[in-house]
């Protein structure tokens, strides 16, 4: 892999780059051995004595129906069944499995119109696989056999698979809280006129030399995280509700469970096990309410709930499918005069994070280019489909697919090089960022584009492919994007961190940040070790225990390193200062004169022969601080501990670009992705290999969204490809030659200058791939994913021939 760096020798947070001990190094991941050896304990690996097994009875007959009658008696009679649960046997409280409503302030959530309308078991089936009852048995087999014997009478309801269908005036209402099945539209109170943007858009179109418009569709894509959701819950003999789970957001789930079951948070303990991938699929609760309701029904006995992949597919959220209309106006010289857009999202059966997606889709739109005027409207309608929620990129890949294709269409009409256009018109430092509230703090997108273009040979290939013959046609495309590092101030980002120096001056860092495979515990540990001045092996992170860990909002919005990392850094700075203060006293000097070496000796910088070991200071603080005869203090008593509750001041968006080269077989419509080059302005690479891993993994999902991934439905709303046999993602051998370029341009706010890279990698491969296909075939595809079937059909319909 090629990696380019742009070093900037500047002081960041008082530490000069050349002094870094671990920042920027590819340290061994903290979790790699157990994951490779298979000893890591995932939620499904949790087995407790006397454990029972839960099963949710699901409706596979209808995608929309009312339960007229439910007879659980035959199920209850199955040997091994301990309890059967209908809707009335569990809490009747409504809830919202998403946690978005907790992430913004209460007034904001109210203004957005977030609702709670889900129930543990429903009598109004809203999607294929909705849960209607529960079985608790001594084995998974018995539970499944019992579930098959539940006798249900349904009243089938019309199935709505599009916003238009569910918005019809006579349509059955999904919830009385959202009339017209309009789950969400940008509220007037927050966004005047129910829209984002600026300027007189209509007027600007009148003055434009070129106006283009089209309507796109972006598919319902599944995260396909490796580990299906699994849980164990136990309502223990002391009246405490325990839940072992793998949510990305353990602290918010903790709060939601306590609220749902009306227990003090101290009486609910949440343990986050090793998490086998997130990508948004666990951003909030998935099956936590169900398993906890089951555990409460059988006090003293643990209940495990795990579902086969096909069931997990239906019950965990996916990306929102989106219908996305866009109209752009340009001046002859390429000046982007106007952008008008509307995305209408297929919400699925329940509201969840209904307010967020239609908003962020527009945020990414307004954050990218210096349009003279811009207007965006967004809404979501309930549909009889499995729920939609967070998925890596959160609306950004959708916008990228649409906006970047439209830009290329405009450039083609105006005969402007799409790379040069982007360099000229992308937003820069000082321009308003995606929320249109805070300015961009750093931007090295030009550098990304220059390095990426050089790496893939943009200029030569773009020119070469402009005129070609033969049935196989090549094309090269570019796409740019930016994302966010946490979502402050829209979302109230916060992370608490406690650092404890042990009696040997090793450090335990307590922080609830989630390691969901993205490597955050490795990079947070690097930040802690670097800041404390301790060897990496002396630092340990302790996370995932709701008793031990303080608040952290969770792994979302690419915020863990940026917000969590700063929290860790600040707590470690405090701990280091306390340690140095004691050393300064002993060495009769000031803190500023001290440094710490690799053997944990704190020494006076100007006279290194004056030193004291950090271990001695810590040991004396616990064991050796007073004269036992006189009681006189001999050292400084007390363990060194530091605590911060940190909220960021910004969201330092990373900028990035992707170049994709494809070869399209015009006789079969097959797309061979030959090469992909992504370059990211990441501020600082704390761990370059982890950054590259994020970019490559993101590219795999981005290419998948562009080329093949989509959940299918039949006319009855039944999902027809909820398995890895029928839903395909790119495998290792399908991936193109890839080059990752890390452009390091330290951000003034991020820890050590770092910005996010978690979600970003998925975004630009989407638009770049579509644009490469556009150059290769001369056709723009508005309906994602761009499958061989669609390509061949388009070639046929347009009567094109390639010889």
């Amino acid at each position: 892999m090629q990696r380019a760096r742009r070093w900037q020798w500047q002081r960041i947070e008082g530490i000069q780059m050349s002094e870094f001990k671990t920042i920027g190094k590819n340290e061994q991941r903290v979790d790699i051995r157990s994951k490779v050896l298979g000893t890591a304990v995932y939620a499904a690996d949790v087995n407790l004595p006397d454990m029972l097994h839960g099963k949710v009875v699901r409706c596979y007959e209808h995608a929309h129906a009312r339960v007229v009658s439910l007879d659980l008696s035959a199920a209850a009679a199955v040997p091994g069944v301990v309890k059967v649960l209908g809707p009335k046997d569990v809490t009747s409280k409504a809830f919202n499995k998403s946690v978005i409503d907790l992430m913004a302030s209460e007034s904001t959530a109210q203004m957005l119109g977030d609702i709670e309308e889900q129930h543990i078991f429903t009598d109004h089936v809203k999607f294929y696989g909705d849960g209607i009852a529960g079985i608790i048995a001594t084995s998974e087999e018995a539970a499944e056999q019992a579930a098959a014997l539940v006798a249900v009478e349904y009243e089938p309801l019309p199935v709505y698979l599009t916003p238009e269908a569910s918005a019809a005036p006579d349509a059955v209402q999904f919830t009385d809280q959202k009339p017209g099945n309009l789950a969400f539209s940008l509220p007037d109170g927050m966004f005047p006129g129910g829209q984002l943007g600026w300027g007189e858009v209509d007027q600007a179109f009148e003055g434009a030399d070129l106006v283009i418009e089209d309507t796109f569709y972006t598919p319902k894509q599944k995260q396909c995280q490796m580990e299906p959701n699994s849980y164990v819950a136990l309502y223990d003999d002391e009246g405490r509700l325990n839940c072992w789970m793998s949510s990305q957001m353990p602290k918010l789930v903790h709060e939601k469970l306590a609220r749902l079951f009306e227990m003090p948070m101290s009486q609910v303990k949440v343990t986050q096990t090793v998490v086998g991938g997130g990508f948004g699929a666990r951003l909030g609760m998935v099956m936590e309410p169900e398993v906890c309701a089951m555990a409460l029904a059988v006090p003293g006995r643990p209940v495990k709930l795990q579902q086969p992949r096909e069931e997990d597919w239906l019950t965990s959220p996916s990306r929102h499918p989106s219908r996305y209309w866009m109209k752009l106006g340009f001046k002859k010289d390429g000046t982007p005069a106007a952008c008008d857009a509307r995305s209408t999202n297929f919400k699925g059966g329940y509201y969840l994070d209904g307010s967020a997606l239609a908003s962020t889709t527009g945020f990414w739109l307004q954050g990218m280019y210096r349009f003279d005027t811009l207007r965006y409207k967004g809404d979501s309608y309930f549909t009889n489909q499995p729920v939609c929620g967070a998925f890596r990129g959160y609306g950004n890949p959708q916008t990228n697919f649409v906006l970047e294709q439209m830009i290329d269409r405009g450039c083609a009409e105006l005969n402007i090089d799409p790379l040069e256009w982007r360099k000229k018109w992308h937003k820069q430092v000082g321009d308003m960022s995606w929320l249109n509230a805070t300015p961009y703090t750093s931007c090295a997108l030009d550098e990304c584009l220059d390095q990426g273009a050089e790496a893939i040979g943009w200029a030569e290939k773009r020119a070469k492919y402009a005129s070609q013959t033969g049935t196989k046609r090549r094309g090269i495309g570019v796409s740019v994007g930016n994302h966010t590092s946490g979502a402050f101030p829209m979302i109230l980002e916060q992370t608490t961190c406690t650092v404890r120096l042990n009696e040997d001056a090793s450090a335990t860092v307590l922080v609830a940040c989630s390691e969901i495979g993205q490597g955050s515990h490795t990079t947070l540990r690097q930040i802690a070790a670097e800041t404390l001045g301790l060897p990496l092996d002396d630092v340990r992170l302790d996370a995932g225990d709701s008793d031990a860990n303080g608040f952290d909002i969770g792994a979302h919005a690419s915020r863990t390193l940026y917000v969590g990392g700063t929290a860790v850094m600040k707590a470690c700075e405090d701990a280091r200062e306390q340690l140095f203060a004691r050393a300064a006293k002993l060495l009769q000097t000031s803190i500023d004169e001290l440094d710490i070496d690799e053997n944990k000796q704190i020494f006076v910088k100007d006279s290194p022969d004056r030193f004291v070991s950090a271990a001695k200071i810590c040991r004396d603080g616990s064991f050796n601080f007073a004269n036992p005869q006189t009681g006189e203090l001999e050292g400084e008593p007390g363990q060194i501990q530091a605590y911060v509750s940190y909220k960021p001041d910004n969201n330092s968006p990373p900028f990035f670009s992707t170049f994709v080269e494809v070869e399209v077989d015009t006789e079969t419509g097959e797309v061979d992705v030959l090469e992909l080059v992504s370059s990211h302005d990441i501020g600082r690479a704390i761990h370059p290999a982890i950054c590259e891993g994020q970019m490559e993994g993101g590219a795999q999902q981005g290419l998948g969204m562009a080329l093949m991934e989509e959940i299918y439905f039949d006319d009855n709303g039944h999902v027809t490809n909820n398995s890895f046999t029928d839903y395909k993602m790119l495998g290792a051998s399908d991936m193109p030659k890839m080059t990752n370029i890390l452009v390091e341009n330290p951000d003034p706010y991020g820890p050590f200058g770092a910005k996010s890279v978690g979600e970003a990698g998925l975004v630009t491969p989407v638009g770049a791939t579509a644009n490469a296909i556009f150059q290769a075939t001369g056709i723009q595809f508005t309906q994602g994913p761009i499958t061989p079937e669609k390509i061949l059909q388009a070639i046929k319909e347009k009567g094109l021939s390639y010889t």
Partner: protein
Amino acid sequence: MSTRVLTDFDLVLPGSLSEALDILAQNGSAVTVVAGGTDILVAMKAGFKADMVMSLTALPDLDYLDYDASSGLRIGANASIAQVVDSADVERHYPALWQAAKIFATPQLRNTATVVGNLLRGSPAGDCCAAVAALGGSLTMASAGSTRELDIDDLWVAYGTTARADNELAVELKIPAPAAGRVSAFKRLTRVNEDLAKLNVAVSLQMDGSTCSDVRLAMGCVAPTMIRLPSAEAVLEGSELNSETLEKAAAAVQEDISPIDDQRSTAEYRRGVAGVYLKRAVEQACSIA
């Protein structure tokens, strides 16, 4: 939907061929025969129920793959796809079969799945099925007291259904030795590399200069079973192989196929690429020769 319930069944592991045939004679349709198990185990996870599963694992001497220049290729019922890939004889004399085996499923499945099992599964998408249908050959069907040779052309009778009688066991696949000038090839289209075919095609032709004869063309995923392409074969049979005849053959394929829409592709697309892929397979066969 997958099931966690594995229903009760008898697992029988015959130690000899005669024992296996006796079991089949006595239990007939109640027996599900398993060689590699890569299809049956997946089916059982999806709810397929078997009363009796007869595994061939303990049967001695059925994992052979032998080639003889005069009598041809013999593949035993327990021979894996990986053995085909490893065979230089198959690579040289039966390119269609070797090419199909080479990209068959995944390495793990190639190590476990058997060639004969792939044929007996009766799927219209089987990659080895296409190759063998084009190469021609026969299966030795043994039953207690008798043995018959079943021509590959007569094997598949309906979707997932073969001409195997309930008391029969397919013990060996025979493919005749190719005459000088015989060429063959296999090609397929998939969504991703490691996948079931959305269309596969295999061709085998006797070339005399540029004239072809004894043309055998097979295509999968375009009908309820793997099929031969009689109309396209008729175009090519005895004719000079050139771009014109190839185009005609490619056009004639439309008369032979009846594809449907499914999770992997559409009928329209399959119709759109069938001729193209047939042409490419013939070109590939001739370029190797």
